[in-house]
């Protein structure tokens, strides 16, 4: 193991490590902790310049205020309307593309695979004008499905890379044996491969959920109003209205961060498995 396990060091070093861990963590998470505290600080504290001292009370009313006086609840619902269909769509499509590219050795295979991989890395700006124009032409501008359709298509690139490598690592004999038995290709996909894909589906679902929930660029480009804007774009426009009302900005930020954080904590193992794909041989 590298570095040498701390248990092999002197007691002093072990103590030092035990103390250093929380100290470094607090420094590391300082912006987050600061904003979390500010979100619970009464507005009067900020007005009196009490930004970092003891708050005069815990102001849950900041959260109550943004829920009752701003459309933040609606923004969160809009985010779900974009995020959940995208997760289902991208994972569904990539299960099929990944299966195709992993199992069949046809001529264009590697070319199509690399195209998915490369497409995944292009800057969003090269897609912006045509995608926005097309969405407008199809009457899907400022709707959840207009945004979700784009996300499904784009995320299919990353998901295909993941699914294809995952299926490639399955024992191919399973498929061979089924073919000898005369099982059709579709049934091989549904009854043999799909049941083995659960970990991959879980990993991709949490990752795509987080990516899409956190997306800001496409939300800005393809949606406009309170009725369809996701939380990221909504928070940005609220931020414009709340100039220097940091207790509200903070509360909004914490709310927007909550769902992906919860998702991460619930599905940690899958989340990290998805992110570190390829980091070990």
């Amino acid at each position, binding site marked *: *193991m*590298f*570095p040498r*396990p701390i248990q092999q060091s002197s007691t002093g070093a072990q103590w030092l*490590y035990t103390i250093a*861990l929380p100290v*470094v*963590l607090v420094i*590391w998470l*300082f*912006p*987050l902790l*600061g*904003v979390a505290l500010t979100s619970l600080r009464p507005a009067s504290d900020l007005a009196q310049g009490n930004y970092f001292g003891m708050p005069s009370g815990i102001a849950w009313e900041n959260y109550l205020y943004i829920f009752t006086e701003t459309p933040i609840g609606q923004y969160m619902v809009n985010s779900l309307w974009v995020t959940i269909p995208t997760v289902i769509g991208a994972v569904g*499509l*990539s299960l099929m*593309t990944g299966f195709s*590219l992993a199992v069949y050795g*046809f001529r264009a295979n590697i070319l*199509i695979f690399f*195209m*998915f*991989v*490369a*497409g995944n*890395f*292009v*800057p969003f*700006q*090269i*897609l*912006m*004008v*045509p995608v*926005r124009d097309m969405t407008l032409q199809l009457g899907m501008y400022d709707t959840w499905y207009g945004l979700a359709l784009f996300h*499904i298509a784009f995320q299919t690139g990353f998901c295909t890379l993941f699914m294809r490598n995952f299926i490639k690592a399955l024992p191919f004999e399973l498929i061979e044996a089924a073919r000898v038995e005369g099982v059709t*290709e579709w049934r091989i996909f549904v009854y043999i491969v799909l049941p083995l894909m659960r970990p991959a589906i879980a990993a991709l679902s949490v990752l795509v959920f987080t990516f899409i*929930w*956190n997306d*800001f*660029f496409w939300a800005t*480009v393809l949606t406009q109003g309170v009725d369809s804007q996701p939380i*990221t774009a909504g*928070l*940005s426009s609220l*931020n414009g209205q709340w100039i220097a009302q*940091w207790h509200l*900005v903070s509360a909004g*930020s914490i709310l*927007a*961060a909550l769902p*992906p*954080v919860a*998702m*991460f904590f619930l599905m940690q193992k899958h989340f*990290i498995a998805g992110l*570190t794909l*390829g*980091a070990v*041989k």
Partner: protein
Amino acid sequence: MAVTTDMRAATPAGPSVRRLNQRALAPWLFLAPGLFMFAVYVLWPIGQSITLSFYDWNGLYNQDGEFTGTYVGMGNYAELMTDPAFEVSLWNNFYWLALYMLALPAGLLIAIFLNQTVTGIRLYKSLFFFPFVISQVVVGLMFAWFYAPNFGLLYLLTEWVTGKGIAILADPDLVTFGIIAAGLWPQIAYVMILYLTGLNNVAPDQIEAARLDGAKGWRMLWFVVLPQLRPATFIAVIVTVIGALRSFDLVSIMTKGGPFGESRVLSYYMFEKALGEYGFRMGYGAAIAVVLFAIMMVFISGFIWKMWRDERER
């Protein structure tokens, strides 16, 4: 395989031919929906943007639904050459790329710090990873609060040390570095998790052997551990480059390109030109996007080339 060949020879019109046809057709049927979506929303728009970059277009159609743009040839690119805002954006992109690479050593450092087996370490690792999970919009707002003039902690800190507070986001010379620092926060977390996974898989026997030979500290890290972390380093470089070139969110949230346009980057400048407050210049925006795309293609090609080599080795 041998079985099917024999059967085909014996009964050319039998069910096995159908099966073979099915096997030739199946990959395309499985691919079709995904490939269609990808072609419509990713491949086609790339070509469309490149074409548009040779036009002057305000994004509108006339009453008959016809395209109203005019062909200007290399006009947009010629204009870019003399556009000072483009030059600033390009330089800032360069700073982003160069400074984002700090995420690698920083991420490795934290990973080494956390690669222990004490009680509660799992929770520590997840908490260190936090910044990556939250939206860049939220990260931008958090750092805007941290940097805020007069009461922000950085301002107070610099005031305490030097007697004069620095409002980093209002300073044309420092603003880009302030935003990059905000971007590094989640990026370091990402690199850290890649290296933690990598460290977990370092061969213990090699470490022990090196230890018996008296290797430790830096030499151990450089000659024994880092070579084994190469796959993690490779992925880390890729995601860091992409992260640096996708720097739209933070710039948009923290400064909107200001002050005086000094914090613009290509991704933000493109958006400003094509959909900003000063009118819609789709063609000019497309030309900026093509430049950004070309820069990204250098890295994408390298990545694909490496993958291609790995595929052939298998």
